[in-house]
């Protein structure tokens, strides 16, 4: 809950005024601190146990900050991490608003742990905590990247397979219908041959961004192959899909035109209630549509 209890307090600017506590500057924790002094060993062991059991990297970072705040009765604790792909990131837990006057300095602070009041040197291992939080953030970034297609930002094939399995299972268990759409770009090879692969990549990115803008919360879009995409649309009548896809071309503010595409749809559980047969049905209809366009 640190994310809501700590960082979320930055939103206090939008909420009715509350009594605020006197603010003092955050102070850096001296580093390196002496491990195994006082409670340092216990604290380190607790953190390692958290790392082993916490499935969420970000959750571990906030848990570690919470533990710091609780154990040392702090008003505020923050950790600054520098990591490839996201640059310098500040994580914070405490009782001060995120956008207080000191925050601008924290945003540009060197990586490390900052607390208020300052924790006596040696009472915990700051370097261990920092390293663990770096690992935790890296885990979440890797997890995110492993489920998403780098070019379009949509889910990748692995994510799609899992999502489709879950959707079919849920559909059978609760009788929740969904429509599977399989779609590919009609002229992708021609775009690559004529305009180069950069133009092909741009067409894929453009389509991905259009999906993101048109789909509802709960719909899922994935890039499942070179120029192949799939959509999982809960509670959507297959007859409504053409109108939905027509809206892709109407989206404004996306770099590059919407490439022409063909698609096939299949309804679960109405037309197929198994992953393989459902996908095959949608795929066959995609190729029928493609043939029809030739």
């Amino acid at each position, binding site marked *: 809950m640190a994310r809501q209890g700590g*960082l979320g307090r930055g939103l206090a*600017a939008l909420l009715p*005024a509350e009594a605020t506590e006197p603010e003092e500057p955050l102070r850096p924790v001296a580093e390196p601190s002496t491990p195994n002094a006082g409670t340092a060993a216990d604290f380190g062991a607790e953190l390692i146990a958290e790392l082993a059991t916490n499935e969420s990297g*970000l959750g571990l970072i906030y848990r570690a900050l919470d533990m710091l705040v609780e154990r040392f009765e702090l008003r505020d604790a923050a950790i600054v991490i520098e990591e490839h792909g996201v640059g310098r990131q500040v994580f914070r837990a405490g009782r001060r608003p995120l956008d207080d006057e000191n925050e601008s300095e924290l945003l540009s602070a060197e990586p490390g742990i900052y607390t208020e009041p300052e924790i006596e040197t040696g009472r915990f291992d700051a370097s261990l905590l920092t390293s663990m939080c770096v690992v935790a953030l890296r885990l979440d970034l890797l997890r995110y990247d492993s489920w998403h297609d780098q070019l379009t930002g949509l889910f990748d094939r692995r994510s799609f397979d899992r999502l489709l399995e879950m959707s079919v299972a849920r559909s059978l268990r609760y009788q929740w219908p969904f429509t599977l759409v399989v779609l590919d770009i009609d002229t992708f090879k021609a775009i690559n041959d004529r305009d180069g692969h950069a133009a092909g990549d741009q067409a894929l990115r453009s389509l991905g961004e259009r999906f993101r803008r048109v789909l509802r919360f709960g719909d899922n879009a994935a890039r499942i192959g070179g120029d192949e995409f799939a959509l999982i649309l809960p509670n959507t009548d297959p007859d409504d899909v053409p109108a939905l896809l027509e809206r892709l071309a109407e989206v404004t503010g996306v770099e590059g035109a919407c490439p022409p595409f063909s698609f096939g749809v299949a309804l679960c559980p109405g037309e197929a209630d198994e992953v393989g047969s459902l996908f095959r049905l949608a795929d066959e209809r995609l190729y029928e549509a493609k043939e029809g366009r030739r």
Partner: protein
Amino acid sequence: MTLDDLEIELRKLPGVRAAGFSERDDVLLVQLQVGEASEAGLPLQASRIAHRHSERPVAVELVRWRTLPATAGAAAPASPAPAPAAQPVPGDAATTDAATTTVDLTREPDERRVRLLAVLTFPDTDELEVHLTLDGRRTIGRAAASRGLLGAVEATLDALRAFAPALTLEPGWARPIDVSSDEPFLVACQVSAGPGPARHGIATGGSPIEAAARASLHALNRTLARSLDPEAA
């Protein structure tokens, strides 16, 4: 799709340094803090990402820390933590975007003026909120978001009524003014504050509705200074 995915995706946006989440009623509030060199399209990108991840209405507040050009007598730009000043650092300013809207939180403690905190839109409920502050007291004005610029003016006047109950504030019109694409939005408006000629205001903003809210304050600045509720002090 988890909150972690949302946070990671937001933190991956260029310039984002910190992210926070909170809930108010049925709205997911997302706050992002960004560095000085963040891209102009960041508020819109962040709003789209947040909307995609949430079933509920989402309001995105974006705090952009900037170092303003030094003025005579102003201190040097803020030094990195530690040792932050207890008082606001001169030459430092924070800008907040709510939904696709920018809000200036520049502090001028000696000047008694109504300031704009946030302009929020809730498309699902067709609501537009304008948050104002005066001497630490905050008010919220509401209007239909579908009324566009005039809705922002109406919501601003609605919020102002709490500070100046004696004034009869009525919206007139609000119009965008064409500017080049790389400039902020510019809006002019007309409002009335009781008998006498109508007041006109003009202001820029990070979005048309924010510019309209600012233009309303601009139109009424002098009138308000004379009519502010002493209780608000």
